[in-house]
């Protein structure tokens, strides 16, 4: 007496179901394949979408979700901020730091006969620069006049080091010489990044094209933005106020919406798979009509017949769903690697989608098996055996 036989004896319904499913291998496999397709589409779209979303969220958050970006609004007379405007903003936000910057295009005169364009960012003070971007190498002077700070990429692209001199001009102005005193650490992408940072006092006009309010948290940034909008934009749009938290929320909403829509399409394919299972099971109970009649005659209860047939549908569903999750995993890992930098960085949402896809696949199969099972169990054995 084999161990397998003894073990099988404790789950006889499953044994009977396995026997029956393997009798119509091709039909069972096709029904399972339909479930597989549905599960793969839900799992890949759902879990991949989650990876994309959290990847993008991480990126956006790393670029200053605690900041509020303020630009001159369309209803202003001037397209820049003056120091008075900045004072007004500062008054509204209280003790929170405000950093005003100006971006310009400049010419870098590498040699007397050659110049190239660089992006310049004028910042008020060394402290302000430190507040908006970390410094990797070098020291910023307390009084910032003739010194320049360069981005890490700019420094490495052009072989610049601290102590080098940069000859820079803007517009019609004459060439000024700055000494490189510090290099920023990468990455310094995001809003208002530039190649070369210069002191605001080097600007003649002291006109600022943007300001950044530095708050302590994403929530505080949202509150501050609301405060600024309320103060300045009650009747006219004097300021354009951006903060990433509300953008993040919007982004999350949009991505969730798209994801739900796509997962919904995947779910429809699972429902179609359920129809395939119902069809397979219905064919099985019609083909096995007499056999089921015999089972009822020899003492199988209606409940036992239902359990065996539901187990068959469940087995087909579980086989398809398992294969689907196994196939979906590498695809989700590719998405994890692409969006989160680590193939194993499964987010809770992604794991949820994988589990839900599996559960939905099995659940739909059981649901699809219910009617055929009920029908088979309720046929009178006398009718089934009459032929």
């Amino acid at each position: 007496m084999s161990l397998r036989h003894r073990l099988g004896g404790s789950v006889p319904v499953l044994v009977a179901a396995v026997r029956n499913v393997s009798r119509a291998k091709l039909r069972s496999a096709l029904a399972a394949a339909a479930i597989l397709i549905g599960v793969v589409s839900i799992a890949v779209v759902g879990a991949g979408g989650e990876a994309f979303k959290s990847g993008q969220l991480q990126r956006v958050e790393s670029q200053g979700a605690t900041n509020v970006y303020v630009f001159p609004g369309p209803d202003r007379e001037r397209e820049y901020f003056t120091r008075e405007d900045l004072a007004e903003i500062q008054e509204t936000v209280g003790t929170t730091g405000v950093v005003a910057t100006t971006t310009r295009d400049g010419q870098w005169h590498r040699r007397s006969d050659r110049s190239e364009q660089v992006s310049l960012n004028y910042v008020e003070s060394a402290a302000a620069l430190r507040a908006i971007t970390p410094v990797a190498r070098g020291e910023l002077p307390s009084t910032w006049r003739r010194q320049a700070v360069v981005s890490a990429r700019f420094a490495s692209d052009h072989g610049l080091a601290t102590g080098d001199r940069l000859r820079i001009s803007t517009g019609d102005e004459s060439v000024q010489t700055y000494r490189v005193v510090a290099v920023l650490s990468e990455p310094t992408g995001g809003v208002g990044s530039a190649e070369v940072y210069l002191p605001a006092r080097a600007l003649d006009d002291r006109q600022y094209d943007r300001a950044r309010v530095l708050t302590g948290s994403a929530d505080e940034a949202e509150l501050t933005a609301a405060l600024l909008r309320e103060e300045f934009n009650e009747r006219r749009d004097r300021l354009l106020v951006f903060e990433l938290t509300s953008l993040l929320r919007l982004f999350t909403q949009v991505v969730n919406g798209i994801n739900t829509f796509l997962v919904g399409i995947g779910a429809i394919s699972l429902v179609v798979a359920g129809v395939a299972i119902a069809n397979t099971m219905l064919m099985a109970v019609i083909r096995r009509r007499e056999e089921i009649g015999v089972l009822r005659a020899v003492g199988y209860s209606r409940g036992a017949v239902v359990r065996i047939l539901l187990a068959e549908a469940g087995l087909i569903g579980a086989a398809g769903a398992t294969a689907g999750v196994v196939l979906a995993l590498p695809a989700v890992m590719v998405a994890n690697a692409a969006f989160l930098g680590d193939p194993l960085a499964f987010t809770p949402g992604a794991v949820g989608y994988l589990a839900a896809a599996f559960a939905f696949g099995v659940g739909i199969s059981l649901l699809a098996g219910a009617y055929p099972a009920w029908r088979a169990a309720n046929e009178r054995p006398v009718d089934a055996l009459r032929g």
Partner: protein
Amino acid sequence: MATADEPEPILRGQDVVREYRTGGQTVRALDGVDFAIRPAEFVAVVGPSGSGKSTLLNLLGLLDVPTSGRVELGGEDVSTFDQGRRTRTRKRDVGFIFQSYYLIPTLTALENVEVPRLLDRTPVETRERATELLERVGLGDRLDHAPDELSGGQKQRVATARALINDPNLLLADEPTGNLDRDTGDSILDLFDDLRTEQDVAVVTVTHDEYVADAADRVVRLIDGEVRG
């Protein structure tokens, strides 16, 4: 019909009527039949097709209930049993040998015999019993053969072993020798005799075969749903 020294019947029917409705018409398949099946008895039911033989067999096997009249099992009216109880009673007391055997084609002879007890969670005992029964019907060397590897007589014997796996008191056989040659038919009839003498199993068979009818203790002739002669 019953006398004092005869044992109590396993199954008794009184004025049993069974009607079917087909296409707006009511067909009376059994028209007031009385019967009693006693332990170890061999009863042959004969009659032309449409005379109600199969209907009677279904009623005896608790697969069906009468439209009127009583079918009693151990003194209880079976029409008061619910579906579950009828099923359990069928399993405990009745063994069926179907005319076309109805073996499951993908299972071996041994597994087919085990089917009625598959859900009992006693795999070891069931296997022992099934093996013993197949050996008894002379198929000890065919345990692992699929039905399509067996001859008609061998299938019949597998079906008989399956009917016996739950130790029934009543064995119902629909044309048990119908498709068999005389020798094979004889071996089936011998097996019935053994079961009756050893285990007091009552055998009721529906047959067209006069040879089987001659071997029976009692012959019930059905014509147009009534017992004649």
